[in-house]
């Protein structure tokens, strides 16, 4: 049966502000899933807490709406319980890199076959606009009236350094490009991070759609080949008049699941629980 973006419709209407960058990500995700043939029952989205996380109400697909910052542990648990299931994480820069920062780098180093869509707007918007870990120096927010002092967390650099095997920057204002990246990210076997630039139209009058459009350039159009870690790190640090987007880094490595010998008998969830034979194990204790 073919999957269309209509299959993901629910009776609920989005509560995001008109023009919110989350709309583009949501629409792209539905289109990407349709292209991939992953229907509402075929996979699961694990949502963080923040504006991004409210997506589940209007996204008809198995969903896990957990606690702030904990998307990645939950997603890894689900993936290990049923490694045949596509697992997509919808997280934000505050959720995934603030409260969830430690989980982020440890998930990357394990390389589970999970796709992370990071809604990145430098803000905690659901709590009315405080600075997030990715907020750039000088950015004035409700929690930083004199501008941010700290160095920002760079999700791309962090991902590459921690062992993620697919690292890309995307823009919620370029839907066809975003859909393409999502399809590639989900198809990638390993930990895929998609850092999506997503303007907050309510609490950020600086980083607007136009601000990004004036600066973003596509890596692929400049002949960039995403197979070198050091070059990828260089690109990850480029931020200013020119901001690169597209795939920065990609490699094939065994996934977290590849190391689990238990999976030779199929996904854990399909394995029987009855009549577990302890005979051999018991002998060790006599």
């Amino acid at each position, binding site marked *: 049966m073919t999957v269309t973006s209509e299959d993901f419709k*629910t009776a609920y209407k989005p509560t995001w502000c008109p023009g919110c960058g989350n709309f583009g990500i949501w629409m792209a995700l539905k289109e990407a899933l349709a292209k991939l043939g992953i229907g509402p*029952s*075929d996979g699961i989205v694990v949502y963080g807490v923040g504006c991004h996380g409210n997506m589940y109400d209007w996204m008809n697909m198995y*969903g*896990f709406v957990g606690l702030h910052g904990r998307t990645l542990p*939950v997603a890894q648990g689900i993936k290990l319980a049923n490694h045949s299931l596509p697992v997509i994480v919808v997280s934000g820069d505050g959720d995934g890199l603030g409260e969830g920062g*430690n989980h982020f780098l440890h998930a990357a180093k394990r390389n589970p076959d999970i796709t992370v869509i990071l809604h990145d707007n430098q803000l905690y918007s659901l709590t009315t606009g405080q600075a997030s870990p990715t907020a750039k120096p000088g950015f004035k927010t409700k929690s930083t009236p004199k501008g941010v002092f700290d160095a920002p967390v760079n999700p791309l650099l962090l991902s590459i350094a921690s062992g993620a095997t697919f690292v890309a920057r995307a823009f919620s204002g370029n839907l066809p490009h975003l859909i393409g990246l999502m399809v590639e990210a989900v198809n990638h076997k390993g930990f895929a991070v998609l850092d999506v630039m997503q303007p907050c139209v309510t609490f950020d009058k600086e980083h607007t759609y136009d601000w990004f459009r004036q600066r973003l350039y596509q890596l692929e159009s400049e002949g960039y080949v995403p197979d070198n870690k050091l070059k990828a790190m260089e690109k990850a640090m480029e931020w200013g008049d020119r901001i690169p987007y597209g795939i920065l880094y990609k490699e094939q490595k065994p996934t977290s699941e590849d190391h689990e010998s238990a999976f030779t008998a199929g996904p*854990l*969830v399909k394995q029987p629980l009855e009549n577990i034979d*302890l005979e051999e194990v018991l002998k060790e204790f006599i």
Partner: protein
Amino acid sequence: MSAGTMLSRAFSRIGYHVLTTNEYPSLIRGGHNLITTRISSKYFESLNKDLHILVALNKETVNLHKSELTEGSVVLYDPKDYEWKTEEFSVPVVLMGVPLTELVTQFKGPPVMRNTVALGATIAVLGAPLETLSEVIHDQFKDKKQAIIDGNIAIAKAGYDYIIEHYKDKTSMHLAPSAKREPHLVLYASEAVGLGALKAGLKFAAIYPMTPINALIAFLADHAEKMNIVYKQPEDEISGINMAIGASMAGVRSMVATSGGGFALMVEGVALSGMLEVPIVIDLGMRVGPATGMPTWTEQGELQMVIHAGHGEFPRIVLAPSDGAEAYSMTIEAFQLADYYQVPVFLLTDKYMNESQWCAPLSLFKKDVAINRGKVADESKLPADGSFKRYSVTEDGISPRSFPGMKNGVYFANAYEHNEQGYVSDDPTNRTVMAGKRLKKLETMKKDMRGPSVYGDRNADITFVSWGSSRGPVIDAIEILKNKGIPSRLVHFTWMYPFPAELTQTLLGNSKRIIDVEQNATGQLAALIREHTGIEIKEKILKFDGRPFYPEDIAEKVRNI
């Protein structure tokens, strides 16, 4: 495997009841490490104070334990460490110098094998056949080269022969003959938890290292391949519980284990499990707190914490096994209850239990378990119109679960308050109904609720109350008191929460003298009993120095109070 394990297994194999504890400071090497083994032809429940043989691998050990020796105790030592003289002891002891280091060197073993010489010597002092020990050594090293097995046995034999040759007439420690019995396992309670989890169909565990549950990690990691399970080491306890909840939501039986400090980090996950109605088993091995406390010592300090842990109101079950055998059976029970009620279920163990080796009959572990997963949706019967209600309001408060991947079972496991399908809702009527639905399970659980067990003289005027691992010393204290003509009984709790108030009221309501025995400073069980029954227990024997109770101390206190 420690020398204590080999000694215990050797005697268990020839029909003796054994119990071994392990005490050490939080250091890998050095400091004073102590293994205590009690061996008896009769069944017993705890370690007692009688010290019959002191095996000292250094001078400090003798100095530290001199005062515990009684007339006729054997002190086994290496004269190279220090030449002990009988006048240095306040009671007449039998000194047995054994050149541990020299014998190891003679057999070209590494210095750490002084242990094995001492083990062979101990077997000789107790008058047991060397073959029993040789067989245990053989089984222990069966995957190694024959030369290693032979080397170990030869070194043990050297210790054995030395005693026979030099002290044969001085050994008065010969044990009463043992009766033939079925094979017994000798295992840490942590390993019993692991075996119970496997038997119950555990498929996923995420456990961050922490004393005293490290033996469970080793057990699960060692058996992951053979038993088709996944053990994952998470980056912290927060991740651990969230991973396990994720795996459980996806359909497999999952657990975490930790101690108090790690559990403090997990608390948000307990509330998450409560809200999502995702089953989870949490093994909390209590140790001395607060904060880092005394990491390698025992306490029962977290009863009130686990009953109240997690923000908001939701049902949970708390079980507290008393020994290795119960650690096995209650772990199975915990998984069954977690699935059936879709709630977090706690196993309250502790350092004393988890790192002591208990003797338990093989037949216990061979009993069949009928797995009951509770209300799991039948995929073929899920409605095609998308109307499946994961959180449907039911009479017993329990709703059917679908697992991701099941066709037509789509829902949101939602940490926000939600409606029957999982959509977010802050409607006041929905909130009242859903909170009520979850809490309804507290009523439903009554059919599985277990009242306290009664031990000793049921008509006695003295009633002890205890929970978890304090049972052993109290039961042995009852025996001591009985021999002195003082009848007593024990009302012992292993099902801690929801609290069995009516059953407790029935058992304690007319008691003349109740004495609360707990390994904490505030009497947490006594507080729980008062909260739910109104019965105030004024007499308390509380111990919070990190060491388990001795039955003699409990008996003595009863006579003095």
